[in-house]
């Protein structure tokens, strides 16, 4: 049990009187107001217990933690650009140092850390061709992060950490089932599913208009915002006629949270009866054995490394 601390009184005892009166907006006690010193923080200056201290670095790290938490709260992806823009401001060059400090604070107080999502794959064929032509260097990291738990496995159960907060557990379960299904459909179609094909599948499932309470369109948009899926719109090549091509791809969050395991689990669940023959078919649909297409190869490798990270903890 934790030590008994100052008993928290219900809010009406201590605050409503004060809050009932208008009061000045409090200053943001953030580093904005503080003089910015460009000092190199030496390792031993770091607060051992990661309590945000008073130095400019500490304040920036705290600001980064706050940014990460507010993104997580609203389930938006934390982006490196966002950190630079909203946290570091003109301290952009100190990214690495502040980031490391924030990780310590996150881990020590919140039991979490920022994990970079896998690099966005080269997606459409056209893009692939273009990438081959330009022979572009792959970027390091996707620049997008999510907060994930660093706690021992026993503390990472679904009861303690539900997938996300939505108004009701039912909605949440429906949503999780729906995105897992859509991701599975995309994955089983070699990672790229045309809009028409997706719509056809959804019609067959009677989910083309509504999913539970919400419109399908809104749910898909939410999945896109939360990066479970990526919607790609392609124009026909210059000089050719044709409509816009819309296609759906597996998003980075899906790879982190659902992964190949999740997809395979879903498929097995749907079939009910399972046998080695079906397992073989499934593997070939997911290109797990063959590993010919570089795209799927990448997926598998990412997934393996994902699992290794999990096991290592």
């Amino acid at each position, binding site marked *: 049990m934790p030590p008994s601390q100052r008993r928290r009184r219900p809010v009406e005892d201590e605050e409503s009187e004060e809050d009932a009166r208008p*009061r000045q907006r409090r200053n943001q006690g953030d580093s904005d107001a503080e003089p910015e010193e460009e000092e190199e923080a030496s390792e031993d200056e770091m607060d051992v217990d990661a309590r945000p201290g008073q130095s400019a670095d500490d304040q920036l790290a705290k600001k980064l933690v706050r940014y990460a938490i507010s993104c997580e709260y609203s389930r938006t992806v934390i982006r490196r650009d966002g950190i630079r823009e909203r946290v570091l401001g003109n301290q952009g060059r100190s990214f690495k140092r502040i980031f490391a400090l924030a990780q310590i604070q996150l881990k020590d107080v919140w039991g979490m850390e920022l994990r970079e999502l896998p690099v966005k794959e080269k997606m459409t064929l056209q893009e692939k061709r273009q990438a081959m032509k330009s022979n572009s260097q792959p970027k390091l990291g996707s620049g997008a992060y999510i907060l994930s738990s660093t706690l021992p496995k026993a503390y990472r159960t679904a009861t303690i950490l539900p997938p996300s907060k939505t108004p009701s557990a039912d909605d949440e379960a429906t949503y999780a089932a729906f995105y897992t299904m859509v991701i599975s459909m995309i994955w089983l179609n070699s990672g790229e599913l045309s809009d028409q094909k997706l719509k056809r599948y959804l019609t067959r499932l009677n989910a083309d208009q509504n999913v539970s309470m919400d419109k399908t369109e809104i749910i898909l948009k939410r999945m896109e915002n939360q990066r479970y899926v990526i919607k790609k719109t392609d124009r026909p090549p210059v000089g050719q006629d044709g409509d816009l091509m819309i296609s759906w791809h597996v998003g980075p969050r899906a790879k982190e949270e659902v992964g190949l395991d999740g997809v395979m689990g879903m498929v097995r669940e749907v079939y009910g009866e399972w046998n080695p023959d079906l397992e073989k078919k499934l593997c070939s649909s997911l290109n797990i054995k063959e590993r010919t297409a570089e795209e799927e190869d990448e997926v598998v490798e990412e997934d393996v490394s994902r699992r290794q990270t999990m096991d290592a903890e």
Partner: protein
Amino acid sequence: MGDSRYTPGNRAFLQAILARGTITFEEARPVLAEIFTADRGDDSEVRADQVTQEEFNDYIDVASEAASLFDYEIRSTVHQVTKQRIYALVNTTSDPQTQLATTYSPDELSFIKRVLDGMFEKYNSPRMEVLAIAEMQAIKLARPDRRQSQVDADAQTQTPGDKALKHSEVENVLASLVEGGWFEKSEEAYYSLSPRGLLELRPWLVETYNDPDADPSEWQRIKFCEACKDIVTIGLRCVEPNCNFRLHDICEDAFWRTRREKKCPKCSNAWSGEKYTGERAVTMTEAFQRGRRRGGGWQGSTLADEAIREEGGGEDAEEDADDPEENIYDDE
């Protein structure tokens, strides 16, 4: 943390609150049971019904203290309808604009401000305190109102944010505000601030919508329950339109039990118990009930606007009625 007894269990509990946005004792019991089970690390299992209020309070205290290092705090309030005590992780340093700015674009932010103005100004008059906004009314706010631009003067004005949102974008923003725990959506498709939204925004709401120099007898936009002192956005009101006396439904009985007569302590009018603050200010009106009997749900018509007009509430409901509104249902 300096305290060596800040354990993985404390961190897990903080995460549990962060993941949910809010938590009640009942919701926390299975969570703490699993945490205690994990703490033991053997095969013995702690059941949810073994978790006491005392243990829950301790974990809340520790979590709040830890979060305070980052200018967060765990505050509690009672849900105005369900009566459950709700604990929420609340940001203590910034106003809604700053908080929402991590998630929404400037155009979306200014739409959200218009929706809040809708809840607390347009649909909140002495005659009719709806303090909520019907979906159709919110959709009409997709376009910035030039006439109202001075209202936004205290908002972050350097951002452009004056582009109209598309119908689908409005739906997205509203859905994500519900999902993000800021708004609640009622069965009649009214949006109102959630308990968490109220906890976070209370100082800002008072500062933004109330007049600090007003006489105590003057009607104010944001009002508090006479019994529990929490903000009232869903509750009961005095029959006198300009009186500020309000009670929550759930506070009413206890309040009158201690009095000899059911008279408003502020203006001495008899207490009816049938005058409402919140969406019932609309949905309990004759006009609305009649409309519903006719079969016009909120989807088919602007029933809410109709009801408001008939009651003489809403500052510019009239004006809106003859607005040659562009067809908002056409998307692009």
